[in-house]
């Protein structure tokens, strides 16, 4: 099981309606369906992954996220989830807006470009970072917008998006005191539960960390 599924699953209310953007082979939705009794759909562009979703009994809609979420009405989902996809889309800002138009809350995870290993590789080794959570070389990476925890939170503040919950973990999805004290330096992956003030499902604490 992917460790981030566990964290996300604990954030999602049982029986919720969920839209998973860039759902891949449907693993997260199948997990949430089996453990949190959610209903919903995945959105995916890769034909082979769509077949995997269908085989797993996960509803999947073939669509290009870059074109927005016009197929989905306002506030039709409790959660719109995007795991490790935000850094791979061109229209980051618009997609974030779309997520919170369609869903009452958004759950976003991304690799933190501010992690000390990334910083070291640029600052001392002088090359683009290649780390476990960002395994590609600069010329073949699907990522087009790399950003840090600090960058993301600044964007949320700029757009008036509330951060209901945050988890900062390493690539095995474990958290420790260091990551709590210096998330942007020591965290490899960041997970956020977001929303607009008036739409919140539940107001959590902005610095809740997973406990293992």
């Amino acid at each position: 099981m992917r460790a981030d599924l566990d964290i996300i699953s604990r954030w999602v209310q049982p029986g919720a309606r969920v839209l998973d953007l860039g759902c891949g082979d449907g693993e997260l939705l199948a997990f949430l369906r089996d453990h949190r009794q959610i209903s919903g759909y995945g959105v995916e562009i890769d034909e082979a992954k769509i077949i995997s979703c269908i085989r797993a009994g996960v509803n999947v809609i073939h669509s290009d996220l870059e074109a927005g979420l016009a197929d989905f009405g306002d506030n039709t989902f409790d959660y719109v989830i995007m795991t490790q996809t935000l850094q791979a889309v061109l229209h980051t800002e618009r997609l974030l807006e779309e997520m919170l138009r369609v869903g009452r809350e958004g759950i976003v995870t991304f690799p933190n470009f501010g992690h000390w290993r990334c910083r070291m590789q640029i600052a001392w080794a002088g090359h683009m970072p290649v780390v476990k959570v960002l395994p590609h070389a600069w010329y073949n990476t699907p990522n087009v917008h790399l950003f840090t925890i600090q960058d993301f939170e600044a964007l949320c503040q700029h757009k008036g998006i509330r951060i209901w919950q945050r988890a900062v973990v390493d690539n095995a999805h474990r958290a420790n005191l260091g990551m709590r004290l210096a998330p942007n330096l020591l965290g490899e992956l960041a997970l956020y539960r977001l929303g607009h003030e008036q739409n919140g499902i539940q107001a959590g604490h902005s610095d809740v960390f997973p406990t293992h």
Partner: protein
Amino acid sequence: MPDVFPSDSVGLVTPETITIEEPIALDCGRVLPSYTLVYETYGTLNPTRSNAILICHALSGDHHAAGYHDTGETKPGWWESAIGPGKPIDTERFFVVCCNNLGGCKGSIGPTAVNPATGKPYGPDFPIVTVKDWVRSQAQLANRLGIDTWAAVIGGSLGGMQALQWAIDYPERIRHAVAIAAAPRLSAQNIAFNEVARQAILSDPDFHQGHYYEYGVIPRRGLMIARMLGHITYLSDEGMRAKFGRELREGKLNFNFESEFQVESYLRHQGYSFVDRFDANTYLLMTKALDYFDPAADYDNDLSMAFRRAKAHFLVISFTSDWRFSPARSQEIVRALLAARRQVSYARITAEHGHDAFLLPIPHYRDTFSAYLERVDREVNDHAG
């Protein structure tokens, strides 16, 4: 000519005929006191009668969806690529039913059938039938076959429209609806193509207001042109370029109006061979059924309202190069299903074959189709268990 049929074919099949001695009230207001349907079945109905799949045919299709009628038959049924042992609609798992629709010309009641009131073929007097009429008659057929609930109703193009109508009209009797290369209703452009096809037939001097049977002729030219026109809309620009290009049959221009380009020869061949196996009055009826299809019309023109009745799970498939019923049309169906909060999956298959792609064994299409039907089969086994 296969003396031994391929192992993934249902092999030799025999059509069956059923006369339903119960009146059917048609959308046009007329009533057929009784009606005959010709149909084929493949596979075996399980003891709980939960593994039945209805296949709905498109404009020029019929009940012969798979297998061969005799060992001399060179071409199998029209959806041989999808139906058979180990194929997406796996006849080892499912009991598959396909009937020739009302108004057809392959053995079901239609313009070529004898009108008991006159002792002559119905011809143009056969009522104009709709997709809803077809679905109603298919439900009667299901009753006669002892099938309460279809595991799935599946079709491409006009067949996909019947699958959607089934889900709306008989929500309790269909667990899955698979609509491939379909549309929620025809566009003005779609209707325009149908109208040209109809005018070709209606203006043929041999048409005789539809009573051509009595004159011992058929409106050959009109039907041929209608079919040629249809074929252009079934293929894509890129598909035609790949298949024919500008290739000349004799390698040179002859400066005449014979068929010089390969594509002309192809269309003429399609037209010629069609007139001998299809009835012009039926063609007119089928195009009208397409034009009239509009399930939203009964629900304040709100398609999602129509789908709110449905209980089935849906699979919608489109093909990138299909311009007759383009991916955008399938997306309209999907959007309405999403708005109605129905269970739906949608796959847009990359294919250069145009609308005809739904009949072809394209790997991604086949795999998508198979994956979905494996799920249908798992549910059948859960029901049976």
